[in-house]
């Protein structure tokens, strides 16, 4: 996708002023999380499984080269073919080469974040190949020519009216008619996409996991579109980034037990599909050829670094659902493929802090993302890491830097700091005594616009501590 993370502040203001978006986001609030809690409560082993899932991923990452080699050997043994891509350009070129070799005109696509990351659709279109998204949410945003705004619910920012308008504009048989019932919209999309499934030359899916033991790629879905995408065309291409490797079927089973519960609050998604190789002797359906494209695109550099833990992410999206900032702004403001807390760590890691430096600040560091993460990823710690890099590189706004420098000049001189604080707190305490707070403060207009600053009580914390007061 085209990235606009530099415009984060501008995007955020626009999102806050967008009444339809605000309305749609209110509906999202809590819905997924309530269901997640219910699923967690009905599985007493949930937290133990989270620890085990984390350990599996840590072990895999520490031996990633060996597991990728083992995976490749098994894919080959089951009649599939593995391709390697250092970056987005190589990944796109590999897919195009396969499409050309097959003489493909139309490809159907299952939902895939890595395909979004490498901007596959516009590239295929530019080379005369028509990609058709088949996940209902992805299909809706493809019609709207927008990127996804949520990992698992890509069109969460659209309401039924907006979907009806997109269908009316794009489905010729509707003749401009607006469907008002969600059931009717679904039936309409089913009809349109069914034809696409049956006509496509190649099916492209992502992969939630690559099993080193067996050479299988796995997709986890609810609609069944991913399965029709990979079953019906002559060729199946699965795109997977390097960190999707897992050792064995037993290992992936442990992770699957926390995945859907964290994502949608289901115990298990409707369809978990393990694919290995092309059509076998005597089989009458399934693709004849199976290709896996393993993509690095910046991930190897995260190994052994401060942000390695982010590679444990299984893209359940529950940190987005838990995040108060995401809940108020939606996913588009982040201006990159990955939004919310996980995106604010991953995007700077993949695309550089220079371009992505606003994102680590789009967090209150409240820690809810880490609390709910099935893979126990320390997201706040890594957000702070990227904030430090931002400051080191002088990317923060000049007022913030100037203010922090001034504060640190005082704070590193304890006696002076205590005296000045005593004066400041004393003056503010007297001034605010009557109202108990300040409706606006110089230099803090943005903060006091939405709330009052409570007045200090006249003495500093340090003085009270020294006197032996303890809360």
């Amino acid at each position, binding site marked *: 996708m085209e990235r606009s993370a530099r415009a984060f502040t501008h995007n955020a203001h626009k999102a806050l002023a967008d009444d339809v978006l605000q309305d749609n986001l209110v*509906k999202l609030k809590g819905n997924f999380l309530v269901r997640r809690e219910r699923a967690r409560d009905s599985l007493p082993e949930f937290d133990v499984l989270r620890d085990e899932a984390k350990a599996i991923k840590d072990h895999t990452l520490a031996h990633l*080269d060996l597991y990728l080699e083992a995976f490749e050997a098994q894919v080959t043994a089951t009649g599939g073919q593995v391709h390697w891509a250092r970056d987005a350009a190589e990944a796109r070129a590999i897919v195009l080469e396969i499409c050309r070799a097959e003489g493909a005109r139309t490809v159907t696509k299952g939902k895939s974040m890595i395909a979004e990351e490498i901007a596959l659709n516009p590239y295929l279109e530019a080379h005369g190949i028509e990609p058709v998204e088949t996940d209902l949410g992805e299909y809706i945003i493809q019609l709207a020519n927008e990127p996804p705004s949520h990992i698992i619910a890509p069109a969460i920012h659209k309401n039924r009216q907006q979907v009806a308008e997109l269908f009316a504009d794009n489905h010729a048989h509707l003749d401009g008619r607006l469907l008002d019932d969600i059931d009717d919209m679904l039936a309409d999309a089913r009809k349109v996409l069914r034809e696409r499934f049956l006509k496509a030359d190649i099916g492209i899916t992502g992969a939630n996991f690559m099993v080193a033991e067996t050479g299988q790629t796995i997709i986890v879905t609810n609609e069944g*579109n991913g399965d029709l995408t990979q079953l019906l065309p002559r060729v199946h291409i699965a795109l997977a980034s390097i960190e999707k490797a897992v*050792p064995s079927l037993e290992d992936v089973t442990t992770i699957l037990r926390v995945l859907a519960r964290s994502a949608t609050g289901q*115990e298990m998604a409707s*369809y978990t599909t393990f694919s290995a190789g092309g059509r076998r002797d005597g089989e009458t*359906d399934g693709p004849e050829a199976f290709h896996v494209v393993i993509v*690095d695109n910046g991930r190897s550099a995260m190994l052994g670094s401060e942000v390695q833990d982010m590679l444990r992410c299984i893209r359940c999206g529950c940190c987005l659902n838990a995040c108060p900032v995401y809940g108020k702004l939606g996913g588009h403001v982040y201006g990159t493929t990955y939004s919310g807390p996980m995106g604010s760590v991953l995007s700077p890691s993949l695309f550089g802090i220079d371009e992505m430096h606003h994102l680590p600040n789009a967090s209150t560091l409240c820690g809810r993302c880490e609390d709910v993460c099935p893979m126990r990823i320390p997201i706040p710690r890594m957000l702070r890491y990227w904030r430090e890099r931002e400051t080191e590189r002088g990317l923060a706004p000049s007022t913030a830097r100037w203010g922090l420098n001034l504060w640190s000049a005082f704070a590193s001189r304890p006696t002076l700091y205590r005296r000045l604080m005593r004066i400041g707190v004393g003056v503010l305490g007297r001034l605010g005594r009557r109202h108990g707070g300040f409706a606006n403060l110089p230099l803090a207009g943005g903060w006091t616009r939405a709330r009052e600053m409570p007045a200090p009580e006249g003495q500093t914390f340090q003085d009270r501590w020294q006197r032996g007061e303890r809360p």
Partner: protein
Amino acid sequence: MTGAREAVLGRVRERLARSPDDETRARRDIAERLAGQRRGTQPARIDRDRAGLETLFVEKAEAVDATVAVVKKAQDVPEAVAGYLRERNLPAEAAIAPHAALDTMPWQGSALSLSRRAARGEDAVGIAYAFAGIAETGTLMLASGPDSPATLNFLPPTHIVVLHETDLVGGYEDAWQLLRDAGRGRGLDLPRTVNLITGTSRTGDIEQTLQKGVHGPKRLHIVMVRDGS
């Protein structure tokens, strides 16, 4: 892409920076891990006898909108399937997996018109044979092969799956073990597709309103056979 494989793996190795000693240990560890089938924690809910597993399977499958009919003998399956279709006013025509276990059932008496083949876009009903049932979450395991076309699981709006109670297990790990025991755990013996199916096709993509049957089946009906044959 020439050299991309070596470049990616080389970068990974460089970042991991294992010493030669570590390297030897690492290779031994992962070989063990890949061969050892090491299980993690399994939910206590599957710790029960066969009757208990059947109850759990039915409860969990129904919780995700599947329907379950239990029949005593394999001979009873055709009538159970025909009855299900009749009651819902669905067509008495189906594509059926050309599976030996299904072939021995007396379909001739059921007034159903069956085609032993993979599914096509226009099929209204697909009848498949499950490799295993997983009680933990009411999940079906279907293993593709010449006698088990995977399209039957996704194209027809009504999906009927026949499951023998003897193929019912507690957790997913037990199902993987069944697959390995059947000699289908590795290489070209591994099914091209293993489908774990838990309920019907669904989506929440429009206003998070749960809708069934968006691309895959709208109805999932499981016929469980008790005779152990």
